[in-house]
Every structure is written in structure tokens, then in C-alpha cells.
């Protein structure tokens, strides 16, 4: 019965966090949504406005849809110090290093990249500029403490202004552990929802193992069965990373899902190709919940869950 109690308690915490809505003061005349549509084979191309069903606070919208293919990227990159990852998840280092190497190879001349090291305090290594990226692993060793959320806030500021024809995104290599930031996870989530750039959060799975021992006894303490042992084991991917990706219309890259290089290629390919869905701002202040569906069987749609108008 204790197990059930614990489950209920933790679910309660999760629900309380979800209930906190961000409040934004934004003047918007047109709502513009970056929408990724994909299936098992990758990005689905060739859709038009007839293929989209978009709702804003439950009301169907007449939308314009532009398909943007192979666009250059403005990437705000956040890298957690490797020493801080080693402190609580040494097994993740190799995977994350491989993903970073793959990223260096995948950045193109036409892309612009800024770089923050999520040390405590964060360190700005590069402003948004074009050209190849080379991570200096020595510089990334840094301190054993990380301020990932604060680094993300600063990184977002580096891509605050959208540039026509380019796609903005925040790309973070992290294990999701942050015990130093002044920015809370809730505040960061609110920013992720408001600001528009998708979060591409690259992390590695965490191994878990827990043994359960059970035995049937009477209320007088007499044992009625042999001890049964069951083990919960496997890996989990930090839920906070998934939440950040989901709330920004981005993607969480679990490096345990396959070859890190291929996973990074997929992630960047997705960023370069997307639909821009726009419609006039509907009346009404407060939170506007957005729903986007497409008429393709098995299609997955990634989009911000909504926006706020004061």
C-alpha cells in the first residue's frame, strides 16, 4: 500500500506543476506557428492549408501554410560542463560527446551558432555568428556544478529576434540536472512556451535498478509464502527534458535510441524543414491553446501548445 501512496504523491506534484500557466505580455497581430509534421519515415512534405486543421482556443482557424525546406539555422547552443555530467551520470559522457562531435560536422557555413557553457555561473563562449563550430573539450570540463536553466535563458536572448528565412532553435546537450540556477524549471517552461524557438534537447538515458522483495504474512506475523523477488531495471530519459521539448514544439533526442550521429542528423534535418502556419490573431486575452492536426494517417505534429496575450 505504501507504493501506491508514493505514486499518488508524485503524481500530485506533477499535476500541480502543469496547472501553473505562464503569463505573457505580447502584442501579436498574426499568429505564426512553426509546425513539424513527421512519421516513421521522417518529415512529411507537400502539405497545403487544406491538409491542416488548426484550432485556437477550440475555434477552427482559416490558415495560410508555407512549406519551408532546407532553411539555414540560427542555433543557440547550450553545453553542460562534462565534469558536472560525470558527477551524477558518468555513463552518459561517451554518448553526449559523440553527439557533440556529430553536431560539429553537421553545422553548415550558412548556419549561425551561439554557444553557452552551462557552468555555474554560465559562460558565454560565442555570440551568434556564422561558421564552423568546434567544441573545446578542455573548456567544457569546467566546474562540477551546472546552471543549465540559466544558460538556456541567456542563450534564448541570443536568438531573440527572428530573421526571415531562417529557423531559430535552442539546442542543449544536457542531462537535465540543475541545482544552481536562479531560473526555476517552471519559469523556463513558461519562456519555452512564449518565445517561439523550438528546444532540441539532447540527453542520454539514465540506468535504473530497484529490487522488490515480497512475502505473504498473516497479521500475526506468520509467513505464508516464500520470498518473491522482482527487479525493475532499464533506463529512463529525464522527464524535464521531454517537457521542455514538448512545450516549445521541439524535440527531445534520446541518445539511447540509436546511433548518436544519425539521431543528430535527423534532428537537424527536422529543424531545417517545417511548415509555417499563420492566421490573424483571434480576439481574447490570456492563454490561447493551439491545436494542430493534419489529415495524414500516422502523422506526428510538433508545435507549441499555445501562446499568451495580455
Amino acid at each position, binding site marked *: 500500500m*505504501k*507504493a501506491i501512496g*508514493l*505514486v499518488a504523491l*508524485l503524481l500530485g506534484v*506533477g499535476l500541480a506543476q502543469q496547472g501553473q500557466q505562464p503569463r*505573457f505580455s*505580447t502584442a501579436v497581430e498574426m499568429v505564426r506557428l512553426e509546425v513539424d509534421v513527421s512519421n516513421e519515415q521522417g518529415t512529411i512534405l507537400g502539405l497545403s492549408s487544406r491538409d491542416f486543421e488548426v484550432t485556437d482556443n477550440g475555434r477552427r482557424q482559416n490558415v495560410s501554410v508555407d512549406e519551408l525546406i532546407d532553411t539555414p539555422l540560427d542555433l543557440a547552443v547550450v553545453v553542460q560542463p562534462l565534469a558536472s555530467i560525470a*558527477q*551524477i551520470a*558518468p555513463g552518459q559522457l561517451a554518448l553526449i560527446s559523440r553527439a557533440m562531435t556529430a553536431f560539429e560536422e553537421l553545422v553548415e557555413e550558412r548556419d549561425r551558432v551561439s554557444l553557452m557553457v552551462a557552468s*555555474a*555561473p*554560465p*559562460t*558565454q563562449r560565442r555570440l551568434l555568428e556564422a561558421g564552423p563550430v568546434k567544441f573545446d573539450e578542455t573548456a567544457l570540463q569546467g566546474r*562540477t*556544478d551546472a546552471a543549465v536553466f*540559466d544558460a538556456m535563458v*541567456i542563450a534564448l*536572448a*541570443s536568438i*531573440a*529576434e527572428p530573421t526571415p528565412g531562417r529557423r531559430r532553435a535552442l539546442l542543449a546537450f544536457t*542531462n*537535465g*540536472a540543475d541545482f*544552481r540556477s*536562479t*531560473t526555476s524549471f517552471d*519559469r*523556463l517552461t513558461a*519562456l519555452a512556451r*512564449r*518565445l517561439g524557438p523550438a528546444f532540441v534537447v539532447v540527453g542520454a538515458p*539514465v540506468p*535504473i*535498478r*530497484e*529490487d*522488490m*522483495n*515480497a*512475502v*505473504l*504474512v*498473516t*497479521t500475526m506475523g506468520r509467513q*505464508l*509464502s*516464500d520470498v*518473491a*523477488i*522482482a527487479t*525493475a531495471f*532499464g533506463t529512463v*530519459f*529525464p*522527464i*524535464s527534458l521531454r517537457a521542455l521539448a514538448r512545450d516549445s514544439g521541439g524535440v527531445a533526442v534520446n541518445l539511447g535510441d540509436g546511433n548518436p550521429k544519425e539521431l543528430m542528423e535527423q534532428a537537424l534535418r527536422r529543424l531545417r524543414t517545417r511548415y509555417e502556419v499563420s492566421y490573424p490573431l483571434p480576439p481574447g486575452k490570456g492563454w490561447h491553446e493551439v491545436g494542430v492536426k493534419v489529415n495524414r494517417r500516422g502523422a506526428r505534429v510538433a508545435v507549441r501548445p499555445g501562446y499568451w496575450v495580455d
Partner: protein
Amino acid sequence: MSAWARRIALGLWVFIFWGSAQAQGPPPVTQQERQDFVNSLATEWALKVGDLAKGVIVGTLNDDVGAAFLRWASTLRTWKNVHGAGASPYLAEGVLFDCVGRMTGVRTPVLSGEKPTPFFFDLADGRPGRAVEAFERALQRDPDLHEARFRAARIRAKSDATAARTLEELASDAANPLLAYLSAVSRAEVAVAKSDLALASVWYRRAQTIHPSSAAAAVGLASLMPGQSLSFAGVDSNDPYYLYPCRILTKEVDEQLAARIRAVTK
């Protein structure tokens, strides 16, 4: 089996009492039926525990860091029993629990005075409360121990208006600029937690007044004014806000603890 797995495998026992077992279905009668029943329940609970981990775990503290915390904790056990030790070991204990209490989602060793907790329940959850208890004991012995006052107030301020006022008082204490700065940032964080972003801005700016190159205040203000560009050049790369959580700021207490840990490890 790795060290962390050994720690977890201390043995999580589930005693299924006959009365509650009967409530879940027809009572198993034969020995085989009873064993099957227990086996199936153990498996079912293991699956639930695995699901639980998905929402909680981000990692496991490595053995070296875990051992350092254990040395800190075991040193305190003996230090507190030293006649005339005063407030120092309690401040050191409070900082220890304040530090590890922030490690949400990280499996850590069980420190002295703690009980192993079952499943993936987070030890970090109960630690801020233990830190506050230690700080209060320190303050009983030395009411002028400002660090204990600040740290206890920081932990309590989100749910305690008096503690929030304590942070405000400390933030105005010109005689202790370090604690004044940390208090101002902490007060801003309380305001953010209560969705009072205007007040948060006031306190981040106060922190900037005390420590003009504050990285924490620059980030905090940027998080309140999203969408604006931010100059992060020139901020303090050793901003004490980021460094203090696991360090004792009261110099003589920090030195005493370090000397005692060295003596234990020799």
C-alpha cells in the same frame, strides 16, 4: 553489481498482509496459490516502480562525491558531541542538508540520521526540512549566526511570509554585503515562485545594486523580460550566488570542518 545498485539493493521488503491480500481477490488457499499470488504482486509492483522512476530520476551521484558527503556527515556526528562545540557543527550540518537537498532527482548516499527510502522516492525531498532544523539549533546556540538565519529563511520563504521578510532585512544589511546580495536574489526567486514578476524585478535590481556584475541578477532579469537581447559580457564569473550552496560561508566554521574531515581521513 555497481556501488549504486548495491545501495539500492539494501532490500526493499513488501510485506503483504493476509487481510489486505484477501481484499484483492479470492483468497489463495494452497501453498502454490499463495506463492503465485505473491510472485504476481511483486512483479506488478516492480512495473509500477519502474514507471515511477521515469518521472523522478536524472542520475546517481558518483562514488567519489558520495563518499565526500558521507565523510562530511560522519565528521558532524562526532563534532556535535564535542563539549563546547557550540553552533558550528549545526551550521555545518545545515549546509550539508541544504546542499544535498537541492539535488532533486539524483540518487545519493543515505546520510547519517536518514532512513533508506523505498523505490525511487527522492531523498532530496526531506532534506531542506532537516537543514532548517539544523540552522535553528545553530541559532539557538548563537543568535548572531547570520548565515544560518539567511539559509533557513531562504528555504522557508516560499511558504512563510516571516521568512520572506527576514530575507528583505538581510538584503538591507550593509554590514554583510555577501549575505545581503544572496538574500536579494533569493527574495526575487520567492517572488517569481509566487508569480509576482514586478516584485521579482525589484529584488533582482536590488541584487544588482549590491553586486553590479551579478550574473544571477542579469539572468533573472532576462527571464522576466523575455525576447530582449542581453549583454552577458562582463558578469562575474565567480558570482557567489552560484558557488555558495555547498560551501560554508562563515569562514571559521568552514575551516573547523575542513580540519576535522582531514583528521578523520588521515
